[in-house]
C-alpha cells in the first residue's frame, strides 16, 4: 500500500512512516494535508505578511507594526482575529455566490498548486505526473476566480478591475508557460519531483545557470510571476490611486482578509514555483544520508531560505517602483518577455542537442 501511496501523495507516505499502527490511506492524506496547510502554508503566509509590512515600513522610513508582542510579530495573527469579528457587509451583489466564494475559490487554486510543490525530497502533498501543468492551470484559474468575484460585485470600479484582471491573465500566462520549457527540456519530464532531481544543490547546478539563455528565461518567469501576483508595480487591477482599489473595495471583514491572504499565498506560490523549477528546489548539495528521516527538515530549511531571498526581492520591488499602466504591462509581456522566452527555449534545446551529442548534456 505504501508504495502506491507514495506515488500519489509522498507526504502522506512520509507521515505514515512515523505511525506505529497502519492507518488507512485517506486518514494519512488528511493528516498530511492538515500539516501541510497549517505548517507549510498558513504559517509562512502570516510571516510573509508581517515581513512585508515591516520591510515596507523600513523602506518608507516608518516603524511598522510594533504593538503586538516584540516587534509586532503577531500583528498578522491579531489582525486575523479582529477580522473574524467584523461585520461581513458588502454591496447588494453579496447575494451572488460568485461574489462570496470567488476569492475562496482563488485561494483553493493556490493551495492546490502549493500542494504539488515538493518542499523536501519526496515531500509533496500530491505528485501528479505533470505537476508543471497543474501549477500553470492554477495560475490561470486563480485569477479567473478573482474575475468572477470582481465582475459579480456589480459596482463600476469592480467591473473595470475585473476586465483588467482578465487582461492580466493574457499578459502573464504565456511568458510563464514559455519560460517553463527550458527546465522541462533539461529534466526531460514535466514532473516537479523529477525537475528538482535533475538539478543540484549548488547554484552552478541549478537550471537557472544551465546555460546563459536559461538565466534570461528565469528572469522572464520571475517577472511573469510578479505580474501574476498582482502586487505593485503590477497592481493595476486594484490600484488604489487609479481605480479606487477596484474589486478589493467591495469586500469587508474576513473576506477582505482573505484577499490579503490570497496576495501572500500567491507570493509564496510564485517564489516556491520558481525555486522548484529553476533554483534547485529542496536540493542542499550536502550529503544528508546519516540524518535519516530528519533530512527532510534540512531540505525544507534550504528550500525556505531560497524562497526567502526571492520574497525579499519581491517586497523590495513592491515598495520602491511606481505602478505600470496596463498597456505597459502588456507591452512588457508580449514584446519583451515572450520573445526572450522563445529565444531562451530555442537556445536551450540546441545546447542540449549539441551537449548530448558530445556525451554530456546533464546539468553542468
Amino acid at each position: 500500500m505504501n508504495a502506491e501511496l507514495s506515488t500519489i501523495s509522498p507526504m502522506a507516505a512520509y507521515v505514515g512512516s512515523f505511525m506505529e499502527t497502519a492507518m488507512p490511506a485517506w486518514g494519512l492524506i488528511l493528516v498530511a494535508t492538515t500539516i501541510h496547510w497549517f505548517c507549510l502554508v498558513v504559517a509562512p503566509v502570516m510571516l510573509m505578511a508581517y515581513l512585508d509590512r515591516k520591510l515596507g515600513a523600513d523602506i518608507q522610513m516608518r516603524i511598522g507594526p510594533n504593538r503586538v508582542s516584540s516587534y509586532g510579530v503577531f500583528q498578522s495573527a491579531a489582525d486575523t482575529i479582529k477580522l473574524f469579528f467584523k461585520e461581513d457587509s458588502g454591496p447588494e451583489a453579496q447575494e451572488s455566490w460568485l461574489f462570496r466564494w470567488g476569492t475562496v475559490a482563488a485561494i483553493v487554486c493556490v493551495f492546490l498548486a502549493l500542494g504539488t510543490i515538493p518542499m523536501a525530497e519526496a515531500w509533496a502533498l500530491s505528485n501528479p505526473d505533470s505537476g508543471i501543468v497543474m501549477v500553470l492551470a492554477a495560475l490561470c484559474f486563480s485569477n479567473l476566480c478573482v474575475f468572477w468575484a470582481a465582475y459579480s460585485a456589480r459596482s463600476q470600479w469592480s467591473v473595470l478591475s475585473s476586465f483588467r484582471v482578465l487582461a492580466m491573465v493574457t499578459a502573464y500566462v504565456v511568458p510563464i508557460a514559455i519560460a517553463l520549457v527550458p527546465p522541462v527540456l533539461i529534466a526531460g519530464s514535466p514532473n516537479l519531483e523529477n525537475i528538482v532531481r535533475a538539478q543540484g544543490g549548488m547554484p552552478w547546478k541549478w537550471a537557472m545557470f544551465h546555460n546563459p539563455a536559461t538565466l534570461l528565461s528565469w528572469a522572464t518567469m520571475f517577472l511573469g510571476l510578479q505580474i501574476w501576483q498582482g502586487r505593485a508595480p503590477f497592481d493595476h487591477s486594484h490600484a488604489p490611486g487609479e481605480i479606487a482599489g477596484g474589486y478589493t473595495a467591495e469586500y469587508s471583514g474576513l473576506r477582505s482578509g482573505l484577499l490579503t491572504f490570497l496576495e501572500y499565498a500567491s507570493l509564496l506560490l510564485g517564489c516556491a514555483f520558481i525555486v522548484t523549477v529553476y533554483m534547485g528546489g529542496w536540493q542542499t548539495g550536502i550529503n544528508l544520508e546519516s540524518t535519516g528521516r530528519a533530512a527532510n527538515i534540512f531540505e525544507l530549511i534550504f528550500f525556505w531560505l531560497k524562497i526567502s531571498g526571492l520574497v525579499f526581492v519581491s517586497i523590495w520591488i513592491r515598495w520602491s517602483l511606481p505602478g505600470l499602466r496596463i498597456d505597459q504591462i502588456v507591452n512588457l509581456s508580449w514584446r519583451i518577455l515572450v520573445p526572450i522566452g522563445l529565444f531562451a527555449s530555442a537556445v536551450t534545446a540546441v545546447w542540449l542537442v549539441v551537449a548530448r551529442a558530445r556525451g554530456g548534456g546533464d546539468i553542468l
Partner: protein
Amino acid sequence: MNEPQTLTFNVGPHHSAAIGPFRIKVETDGEMVLAGEPDVGYLHRGIEKVAERMSWTGFMPYTDRVDYLSAIHCNLAYALAVESLAGIAVPPRASCIRVLAGELNRIGSHLLSLGHLAQQLGAGTALLYSLRDREKINNLFEMLCGARLTYSYVRIGGVAADVTEGFIEKTYEFLEYLLPKLKEYHDLLSNNRIFMGRLANVGIVTQAMAVDCGLTGPTLRAAGMKFDVRKNAAYCGYQKFDFNVPTGNGEVGSVGDAFDRYIVRMREIDQAVSIIKQALDALPEGAFSTPLPRLFKAPKGEAYAAVESPRGLFGVYVCSSGEKNPERVRFRTPSFPVLNLFPDILKNVPVSDVATIIGSLDIMVSEVDR
C-alpha cells in the same frame, strides 16, 4: 440595433487623486474615457463673504485657508493689495523675509505635489520621502511664526515678527540637507523608466489651450510659455534676485505633458533654493513691520495685487468704502481655471491616466472653492 453603452463613474468627491473633496463625472467605454465633467463646491466656505464682516487686519487668518498648502502666498497677496490701497510702505527687511518665507512655502508645496503625483502612480514611498522633507520646512515655519500650516505670518505693513534666533542658521542647514535629497527624488522618480512612461505624452496641455483657459504657474510654464509673476510683475523686490524661470521642453514626450509639469516643479525647487540663499545672504537690517493705527481703515477705493503662488498667479482684489471692514474681497486663484481644461484633457484617455492627469495638474480644492 443596440446602442453602444457607456459606463459612468464618479471620480470623487473622496478620491485620492485630488487634494480635497472634488468630483469628476467620467464617462467611459471600457478602458477609454469619453468625457470628464468636473463638479466643484464641496469645500465652499464663503471666505470672500466672511471678509465683508471682518476688520481689515482680522481677515488675515482666513486667507491662510484659501490655499492651506501655500498660506504665505495667500497672506502676501492680500497684504500687498491692502498696502497698495492704503499706500503703506513696507520696510526692506520685511520684503526680504516675505520672499524667504514664500520660497520656503513653495518648496513645501511642490514637494507635497510631487509626492502626491507619485502616489497616484502607486509609488507611495516617494510620498513619504517628500513628506519627510516637507516636515523640515514645517519645523522651520514653526520656528519662524509658531504655526506649521496656517501661518498668518505676513501682515499688512510687514510680517508678524522678526526672524527668530537661530532661524537663519537652521534654514542654511536645511538647504544643505535638501540638495542631496533632490538628487534622491531624481533617482527615484525622474530617471525611472516606469515613471517616465507613465507621464510622457499624458494629459498634454498645449500653449494655446493653456492661454485659452487662463492657466498660470507651472502648468502654463510646462506648456512652454515663460510667464512668472515674479519676473513679469515683480513684487517684494524679486527683481533684485537672480533666478531662472524653467519651462517645459518635452524631454521624454511632448511639450506640456504631465512629465513636463512634474519636472518644471522640480526645477522650481532648485530655483527656490537659490532665491532663499540670496535672501539669507542679503537680509537687510531694519524694522520688520510698519505699525498700523489701532483701528485700521483703508481709504475709499480699490486695489489689486498678484503674487506667484506654487500653483500660479494668485490675485486679490480689494474694494474699500473707507470703513473698518472691506466692502468686497475677491480671490483670483490659480487652480480654478485648471477646471476649464477638463472637457478637453479627459477625452480619449485611458482610465489609468485620469488620476495621473489630476495629480500632475496639482489642483488645490480649497482654493477652487474657497
